[in-house]
């Protein structure tokens, strides 16, 4: 597990030329955080990209260990010394805490230092070479993104999700595994789209909407609304009232 040298993809359909192109610039990479999603990002960048992960970085007060998977764990201040902007790319693979606010804020803060970010496209996803996708986004295995769809920056699109043609995903969204977003729907910034949920074609979601796991959204969704159930209905209150989001 530590060396990872002989770990290979076991899959009938290995790297498509499209994702190989997208992942082809060899650069060194530093991953923000030590949680499960950061560990997952380390694994995916290590075994399924041309990037080489060289360190983890954390905020002051979160440096619980000095190394992780054999790599140094550096406070951001130390990162600036050891891997200054321009020498590495960063990945901030945090989850949807604070309606993606944590990930958005952290990426924005690191950007002010001059860092740029890597985007990960799984070799086992189905995407097209002209896909528009922003920096620090991740597209996991089994994801399908059809032509004329676009994805903003800092988005996390989890395994098996389906983004249909002409769909627009705003910045800082979290699309959970196996969500289905049908043609020309528009998802506003910082939305959380739940596991295995469905959005019908052409629906418009405002900023910071929360669509629960398994929900089927057949109407538009208002900014800050929490939508659950089949068909999805707006719950009283806003995402601020969701305990799990805080």
């Amino acid at each position, binding site marked *: 597990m530590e060396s990872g040298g002989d770990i290979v993809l*076991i899959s009938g359909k290995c790297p498509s030329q499209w994702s190989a192109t997208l992942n082809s610039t060899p650069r060194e990479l530093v991953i923000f955080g030590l949680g499960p999603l950061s560990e997952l990002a380390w694994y995916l960048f290590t075994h399924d990209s041309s990037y080489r992960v060289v360190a983890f970085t954390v905020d002051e007060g979160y440096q619980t260990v000095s190394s992780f998977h054999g790599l140094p764990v550096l406070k951001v201040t130390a990162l600036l010394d050891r891997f200054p902007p321009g020498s590495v790319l960063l990945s901030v693979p945090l989850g949807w805490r604070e309606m993606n606010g944590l990930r958005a804020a952290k990426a924005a803060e690191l950007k002010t230092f001059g860092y740029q970010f890597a985007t990960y496209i799984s070799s086992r996803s189905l995407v097209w070479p002209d896909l528009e996708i922003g920096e620090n986004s991740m597209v996991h295995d089994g994801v399908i993104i059809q032509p004329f769809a676009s994805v903003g920056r800092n988005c996390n699109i989890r395994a098996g999700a389906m983004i249909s043609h002409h769909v627009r995903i705003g910045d800082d969204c979290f699309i959970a595994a*196996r969500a289905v977003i049908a043609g020309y729907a528009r998802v506003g910034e910082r939305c959380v789209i739940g*596991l295995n949920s469905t959005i019908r074609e052409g629906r418009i979601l405002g900023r910071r909407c929360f669509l629960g796991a398994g929900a089927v959204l057949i109407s538009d969704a208002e900014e800050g609304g929490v939508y659950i159930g089949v068909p999805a209905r707006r719950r009283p209150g806003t995402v601020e009232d969701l305990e799990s989001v805080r």
Partner: protein
Amino acid sequence: MNVVIFGLGEIASLAWHAFTHDSAHRVVAFTVDRRYIVEKELHGCPVLPFDSLKASLPQDGFGIYVALGWKRMNALRAEVLERARAMHYPVLSHISSRANVWSDLVFGENCLIHQGVSVGPFTHIEDNCLIFGGANIGHHARIQANCYVAGRAMVSGGVVVGRGSVLGANYTITDGVRIAPSTFIGAGTVITFDTLPNRVYTAPGARLRKVLADRMPRTR
């Protein structure tokens, strides 16, 4: 390696198909308890009584796969597996070449992972788990022994699925939930909380609407 499949049902046929067309193994026989033998052959392979398997086949060079479903909350499959182990035959597992798994996946004996299944890194699948097509097992999840995961089921990151559970088709478990041992989750159910052992959870079924299909307002 030569394989003997325990069972004669659809799940045994699926296992035969997977081993025959998608592995380096060769199925040489089916086996069941003597009283269940009706036909002498299945898919061109002899059907042998389990109690005389040792006599019928030389012990070296054979492995067993127990291809049973979730009868008695997977207990039947677990019991037969124990009997097979008592016969000292190696027990095989199979992962479809069309499943998305990583080469360091930790999985036990008598597991069968069908095509289109996606398994994330840092996942552990214990002995005797049957995972059907298109299921998704998230990163850092743990599927304990003797589980049955139906097609397109969705286990997300960090979930622990207790021993002997049955997870229905296209059901969804959200992050970090604990599924107690012997939980039964019906098709299409969404589980966002920890479950109780030996309990059944189901989703509301489809409703028959009053409107006729050809009178439905156009949605676009």
